[in-house]
């Protein structure tokens, strides 16, 4: 089967998963709401009167105050993390680079926790988000400059650097947990586990904005990422300004990861699993890869969140736990496959 046909199949599959996931997420919950009521309510909000729209005020507010913002947040965060993963893999020239694995997410969580514990409000209500971004950026820069040699990053170095960064951020988080009051402690734990619970429209708007801009930028840079996979020197000989591309992309990864971490905590492995599955299906060309990753990430998070809040009755599992549950074995699978094929990455 050629890549073009696979692309069509992938698009259809993603569309079904996405629409199905969104509707199922709106329907399932402590208060059961029928799909007709969901569609009716959305149509009414769009100014189209219809017989399905729910009259019950509780149904209406459950949808618009609780479920819809949570779904929208899931879509945006999923897209942001998957695109961040694809971009990171492109600039590291390494398919194992992922914000969670190499410690960008924990850097972001550390930054956010600093703001929480110290009660900083320098940037108003966005202070925590700004600190999450700064922490993520710092971690990305650190990993990037420590783990690169001769224009490439070997897997072993990358993973070891990730271990170091994660350990350091982990220690920082532990210290902050130790000194925080009980309210702060709860917030930090939330960051470590990751959750879409309690998403508000204001936050959703910020995440959607950053994700849209970041994804658009990544798509524009897509061709250059293709050329970068020839190695840095070859890319330079083909007219790519590698230094500018590299720094711009690091900021991009930190922005996308930072905004996701700021509002939803650490949701690991999305940036690893999604671009990988898509690359295996339609090939590595970065423009289609990034676009499909955005949709794939959105679908994965919406479905994972649905699972997180419905698998145990009456409980809301942290979504970071679920994605790691899927991502961990997937990581093993990748390692195993690569070792069998070429004796490692180096």
């Amino acid at each position, binding site marked *: 089967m050629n890549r073009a046909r696979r692309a069509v199949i992938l698009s259809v599959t993603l569309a079904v998963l996405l629409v199905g996931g969104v509707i199922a997420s709106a329907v399932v919950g402590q208060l059961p709401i029928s799909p007709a009521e969901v569609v009716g309510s959305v149509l009414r909000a769009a100014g189209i009167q219809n017989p399905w729209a729910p009259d019950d005020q509780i149904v209406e507010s459950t949808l618009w105050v609780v479920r819809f913002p949570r779904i929208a947040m899931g879509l945006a965060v999923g897209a942001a993390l998957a695109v961040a993963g694809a971009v990171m893999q492109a600039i590291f*020239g*390494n*398919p194992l680079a992922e914000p969670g694995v190499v410690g960008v997410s924990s850097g972001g969580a550390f930054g956010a926790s600093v703001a929480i514990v110290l009660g900083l409000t320098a940037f108003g209500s966005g202070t925590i988000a700004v600190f999450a971004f700064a922490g993520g950026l710092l971690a990305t820069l650190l990993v990037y400059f420590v783990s690169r040699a001769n224009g*490439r990053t070997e897997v072993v170095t990358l993973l070891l650097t990730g271990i170091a960064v994660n350990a350091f951020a982990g220690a920082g988080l532990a210290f902050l947990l130790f000194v925080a009051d009980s309210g702060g402690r709860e917030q930090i734990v939330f960051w470590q586990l990751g959750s879409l619970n309690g998403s508000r429209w204001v936050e959703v708007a910020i995440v959607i904005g950053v994700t849209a801009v970041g994804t658009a930028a990544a798509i524009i840079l897509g*061709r250059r990422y*293709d*050329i*970068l*996979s*020839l*190695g840095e*020197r*070859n890319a*330079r*000989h*083909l*007219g*790519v*300004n590698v230094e500018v591309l590299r720094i711009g992309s690091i900021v991009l990864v930190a922005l996308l990861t930072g905004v996701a971490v700021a509002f939803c905590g650490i949701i690991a492995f999305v940036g690893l699993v999604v671009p990988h599955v898509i*690359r295996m299906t339609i*090939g*590595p*060309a970065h423009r289609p890869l990034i676009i499909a990753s955005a949709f794939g990430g959105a679908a994965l998070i919406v479905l994972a969140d649905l699972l997180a809040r419905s698998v145990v009755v009456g409980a809301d599992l942290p979504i970071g736990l679920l994605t790691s549950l899927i991502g961990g074995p997937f990581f093993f699978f990748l390692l195993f496959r690569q070792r069998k094929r070429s004796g490692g990455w180096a």
Partner: protein
Amino acid sequence: MGMTTSDPISARGVSMISARGVGVDLEGATVLDDVSLDVVPGELLVLVGPNGAGKSTLLGVLSGERRPSRGTVTLDGRELGGIRHAELARLRSVLTQENAVSFPFLVAEVVAMGRSPWARLPEGRDDIAVVEEAMDATDITHLAARRYTQLSGGEKARVSLARVLAQQTPVIFLDEPTASLDLRHQEDVMRVGRRMADEGRAVVVVLHDLSLASAYADRLALVSGGRLEALGSPAEVLTAERVERVYGLPVDLHLVAGRPVVVPRRA
């Protein structure tokens, strides 16, 4: 210092690349010193010399990858350092010895990347024809739909060469293009280089095989200890005395079709 400089070419004043008094210092050591040479359109110039002589450094300086510590290099009359990345990529292409590709792109996709400097320009319209021609010239058409990451070393080298050809630049640099190739493909690659030169391009190649260099080059530049030891036609540059001195190995020279073939004297 015993330099053979029968260099009528620079006198013509049409040189594509012109290096003057070029020197490179690396960590306090001089790896290239006072090199001056010109490459003209339609010429195949081969850089030869022992390991560590400075051939690759010289190639890097000429191609604009490395800024010289001393001296100047101009491309088509313009200072190399003043040409922007994107424009430089339309003036000169470089085949490096780095053949790794990070992701499993198809061979045809890799070759097509050579067209990227021409994107959104009128020349970019005949991309497909150019890519096909480049694959044909390097004998890789049958590999077009294969994944690059699954190719053998020799196949990868030829795909990289096709990518460089697809860039369609007036100046072409090839850094050891025959390494890891079998006898036939070595000849094929040099024939491609020869043809590029005959089409009016300036082609600069780094080679280790003196006989191969001698068979295809218009001129040889023999680099030794960071200096230009000799520059001229293969017959002028390759004398038994000079080769023995530079390489530290006694050799016999034979003439085949008027060009020297170098054979180490074996006990």
